């Protein structure tokens, strides 16, 4: 996943320090880690695979993924034209 596009934020005024996000993260090393003050911190944002399972298990909806999975529909005609142009 392009790490530069997604930014993960944890809203501290909502967070309940239950650390469900640390337990559940499906990335290999885990995106979240318990910080020194008990709040989870985003330690490895580049690991995030954007499965968003942390959203479903957070009791207070405190996790925000910004620029999450920008979906673009390409124009197939343009792409085909471009391909043929390169071939010729």
């Amino acid at each position, binding site marked *: 996943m392009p790490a530069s596009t997604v930014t993960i934020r944890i809203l501290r*005024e*909502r967070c*309940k*320090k*239950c*650390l*469900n996000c640390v*337990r*559940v993260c499906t990335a290999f090393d885990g995106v979240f880690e318990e910080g020194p003050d008990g709040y989870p911190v985003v330690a490895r944002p580049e690991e995030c695979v954007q499965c968003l*399972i942390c*959203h*479903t*298990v*957070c*009791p*207070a*909806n*405190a996790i925000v993924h910004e620029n999450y999975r920008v979906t673009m529909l390409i124009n197939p005609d343009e792409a085909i034209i471009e391909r043929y142009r390169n071939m010729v």
Partner: protein
Amino acid sequence: MTGKLTLAVIPLSGCGGCEVQVLRALALHEDLMERYEIVYWPLVVEETKLPEKVDVAIVEGLVRTRENLEALREARLRSRTLILLGSCAAWGGIGGSADSFNPRLSMKAIYGREGIEESAEMLPRAYAAADLVPVDYIISRCPPPVEHVVLALRAIAEGKKVPVADSTVCSQCPREIKPVEKLEFKPGLPGPNADPKTCFLSQGYLCLGSVTTVGCGAPCTRHGVTCFGCGGPHIEIAERRDMDIVTALAKKVATLAGLDPANDLDKVVDMLLKVYEPRRFYVFTFASQVLRRKPHGYAVHALASTRRDPVFVKRLEERAHFASGEEGL
């Protein structure tokens, strides 16, 4: 005109508590009284007909009779902004539990006959007003906090947007969430033995705070009562087809207990439904079509189990027998 916005409050089948909250909002905040002119409100003014054009209409209560349905449609047609007030209008509320009973049998149990010609025509089921007409704003909860009513009315008068609630009751609850060592659920409400500082979910009691939309300040959990979900489900649960109150809660509890929320979901849901009746999760959302249409939801299970409940049916039949006997005397 005087430059004031016109305000109409239309009561449907409800208890009237939400109307009292509007009354309190207008009484406590003088700037609202300067901006709004009440044109129709059976509780307050003597006007008996809804005017042709209204700026803001507030609807309270659920749709139970044909008269309610017509009043709701009229309110939508004639108003520029329609606000639904309270759990009944938004999700069906407590009154939505009327769907547990056969309406004809209920009429028989109370009045001794199946229908009363001179009375209002009962619809076959109870409807939440939000399922029937498009609406602009929903202020949920039972009763809705005065602050929310003030915020909405003030924003509409100033031409602004009202912010959307996108968090849950947990974010305002002071209780501390601790991981669960052994997953078990205790039936009933927490007694005096419950720890006042720890989250109810961590202690094994059923608390719907983590799936209920934010806005109340968590007064129930502060006073040692679990959340019953009067605000209705959180916006993400309401929107997404793959989520439901039961499954969303089971996911959160499973993760607290160290289980996998995807693989062990069915196990936790089975445990929850073994201890609690399905209707316990839908106390305020029983009549809502939003939750009944969920493909992995349990609202329809709750409805079916309640309708077949032998205790309920037997009690109703006994009462019907008693009522008919009384009339014969």
